[in-house]
């Protein structure tokens, strides 16, 4: 195992401050996966705070019965945007930040397969996020829930532009996600280092590949649903008009055929992160690597067969309900397999109790709790009581916050030294962890009881005297502390940038290729492309070839040049969306013009110039 800083290559591995240097224009035109990853990460964290603020307002309103802090209309906007923001603008881009920065390094590549397409994905996401949030300033934010059920979303029941912001925004984000996923599929299939067979790939790369397949298969379903809804709203079609024979359940089916795989899109990257961290901090290879890979594939596959468990209360009938109950329970099995493999990895390991491991262990514990309530909903009969109550809210937050966010924070503590070249304070990290763990549980555990006692979701207040007061107050207090705990993290990052110790190439003693590069890596990643002979190349005896990463004797490779066309193409799409939103056809045509200019410029610009 290579120690911090020292490597086989004499002359050491230099820190490359130039990786991030250059003015705003160099960032706007960058096609470097590392910079794009940083931009995704910063944007995602910003929107995580925005979504968090929306949550805190919800909790303030619910802190006491019959509260009048937030009126019903604003409340509907808040819970809608909280969900939409957290899913699409925080968790997915945060995962994308790691896909971008880490995967090319882990597979020993210099960048992704299509660097400009990568930049396009980022700019379209960023502009789409701004577009959707602009709704707050122009008539109000979407207010029909993050799942936008028909026909509440019809023009009859949702007049104005709110739902149009939602529909168009999600379509834009969908294009961004699909483009990104296509890029990562090709990258992982085709740009792996020599000797890196699929069964030698790092787990995080595996989960990225599986997530990318989920994205390209699931997103088209919601795209079609959104198109049907958009046509109903803009052109007067009858797809969700019951009087004309339309079926509102068609929306639900299309949405959840996307929506259930979507939760695995949210989860699998986090599972990948934890699968990287636990072996490194146990100083043992991952137990049952193949089982962890296959269970990831099985989760993805089964994830397409459970969607109607979100529809147990709509009247699909006993046969459908039974089938979906069964498939939903089945999916607990591969998830359990992973948990046992992590435990077996920790068992007998030489544990390094540092912040990334703390968050990984916290993830396992919280995710198990979330999984248990999930299995309870899997029973259609039990779910008839639980659905649309706070019991479900408790479940989703245990798996998405206690699960996914804890895992992504683990990833942040693990990989930020690689990204910035500096170490975060482990002491502050552990403080953040404990306060977050305790306050998270204080916020969400009482919600299980609130749900079982009958408190409904998505309702702006509750009557006094129903016995909901104490639990809601506890939850609200917990949420305030949870919000404050983020400040500890931000302070840690700020402190790190000014006073953090240089990280060196491999501060944690990791085994995968990203730890063989400088921190941060040079813009070309590897002077010589590495060759691997095992799953843990930096732990293996044959470190000969793979450590040549930064041999100064080899000339710097040429990298693709910057380009403005990805951003321009994204701008064209957003202009089209604005035209559609305001139903001004000339603006749509201007958007098409900008789009075509961007696409042709992109097609005719050579990759290196």
């Amino acid at each position, binding site marked *: 195992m290579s120690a911090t800083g020292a490597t086989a290559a004499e002359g050491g591995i230099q820190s490359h401050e130039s990786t991030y240097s250059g003015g705003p224009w160099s960032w706007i035109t960058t096609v470097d996966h590392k910079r794009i990853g940083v931009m995704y990460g910063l944007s995602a964290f910003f929107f995580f705070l925005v979504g968090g603020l929306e949550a805190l307002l919800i909790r303030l309103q619910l802190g006491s019965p019959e509260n009048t802090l937030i009126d019903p209309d604003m409340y509907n906007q808040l819970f809608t945007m909280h969900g939409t923001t957290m899913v699409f603008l925080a968790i997915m881009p945060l995962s994308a930040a790691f896909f971008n920065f880490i995967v090319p390094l882990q597979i020993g590549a210099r960048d992704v397969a299509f660097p400009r397409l990568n930049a396009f994905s980022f700019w379209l996401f960023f502009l789409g996020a701004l577009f959707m949030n602009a709704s707050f300033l122009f008539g109000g934010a979407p207010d029909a829930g993050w799942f936008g059920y028909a026909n509440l979303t019809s023009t009859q029941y949702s007049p104005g532009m709110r739902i149009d912001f939602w529909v168009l925004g999600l379509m834009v984000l969908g294009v961004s996600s699909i483009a990104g996923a296509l890029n990562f*599929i090709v990258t992982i*299939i*085709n740009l792996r280092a020599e000797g890196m067979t699929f069964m030698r790939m790092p787990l995080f790369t595996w989960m990225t590949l599986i997530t990318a397949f989920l994205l390209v298969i699931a997103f088209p*379903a919601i795209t079609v649903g959104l198109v049907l809804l958009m*046509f109903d709203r803009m052109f007067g079609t009858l797809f969700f008009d019951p*009087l*004309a024979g*339309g079926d509102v359940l*068609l929306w639900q089916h299309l949405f959840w055929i996307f929506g259930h795989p979507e939760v695995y899109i949210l989860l699998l990257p986090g599972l990948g992160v934890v699968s990287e961290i636990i072996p490194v901090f146990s100083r043992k290879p991952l137990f049952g690597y193949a089982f962890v890979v296959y269970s990831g594939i099985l989760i993805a596959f089964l994830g397409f067969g459970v969607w109607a468990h979100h529809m147990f209360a709509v009247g699909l009938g006993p046969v459908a309900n039974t089938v979906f109950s069964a498939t939903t329970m089945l999916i607990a099995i591969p998830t359990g397999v992973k948990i046992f493999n992590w435990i077996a990895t920790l068992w007998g390991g030489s544990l390094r109790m540092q912040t990334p491991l703390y968050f990984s262990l916290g993830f396992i514990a919280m995710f198990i709790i979330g999984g248990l309530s999930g299995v309870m909903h899997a029973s259609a009969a039990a779910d008839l009581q639980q659905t649309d109550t706070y019991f479900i809210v408790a479940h989703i937050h245990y798996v998405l916050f206690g699960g996914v966010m804890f895992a992504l924070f683990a990833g942040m503590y693990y990989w930020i030294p690689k990204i910035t070249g500096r170490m975060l304070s482990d002491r502050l990290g552990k403080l953040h962890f404990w306060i977050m763990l305790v306050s998270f549980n204080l916020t969400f555990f009482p919600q299980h009881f609130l749900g079982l006692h009958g408190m409904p979701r998505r309702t702006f207040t509750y009557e006094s005297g129903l016995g909901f007061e104490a639990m809601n107050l506890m939850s609200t207090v917990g949420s305030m502390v949870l919000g404050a705990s983020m400040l500890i993290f931000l302070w840690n990052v700020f402190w790190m940038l000014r006073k953090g110790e240089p990280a060196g190439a491999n501060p944690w003693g990791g085994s995968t290729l990203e730890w063989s590069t400088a921190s941060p890596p040079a813009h070309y990643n590897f002077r010589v492309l590495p060759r691997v002979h095992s799953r843990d190349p930096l732990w293996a005896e044959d470190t000969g070839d793979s450590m040549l990463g930064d041999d100064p004797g080899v000339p710097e490779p040429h990298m693709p040049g910057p380009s403005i066309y990805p951003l321009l193409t994204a701008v064209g799409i957003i202009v089209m969306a604005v035209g559609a939103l305001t139903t001004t056809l000339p603006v749509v045509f201007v958007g098409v013009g900008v789009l075509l200019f961007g696409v042709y410029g992109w097609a005719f610009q050579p990759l290196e110039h």
Partner: protein
Amino acid sequence: MEMHSSTGLSSRKILMWTFIGSECMLFGSLITTYLVYRGKSVVGPYPEDLLNIPFITVTTFVLLMSSLMMVLALAAVQRGDMRWGKIWLFMTALLGMVFLGGQVFEFSHFVHEGLTLKTNLFGGTFFLLTGTHGAHVAVGVIWLLSLFFLAQRGRLTQANAETVEIAGLYWHFVDVVWIVLFTLIYLLV
């Protein structure tokens, strides 16, 4: 940047195939919507009133022939015969435009007979499904004409055979989708 390949295949080709896989889900969802709403329109006109199978058979044949043109175009470019490469590329685009012309004719006939997007579920699902397909054909036509003009200027050569191949993959996909649509919408009324 060296164009590394773990599989021996070109990255651009893998990208197009994966994109086509995603598009299968897109059309699959649209087709499902069409099938779920078949027979559910509350008012007419209904499919049996309007669908003109002989006419559509001709336009279908035209589109299928365009795929043949595409195959010939690729073969020509691969052997370095840019003269025939240009001709076949243009013919592919031309037949695509004839197909689109047929669609426009059929659509305006339907509107004339009282079927629009908003009339009933048949109108909505029919125009959305065939319209989405037509939009894909139009994108393909623009792509092919762009390749044709590049070739005219001597900027598309035998070295670019893979670019033509990838355009061909897209074009054949669009054709296969039409075969499915033709079968489900027109033949299985």
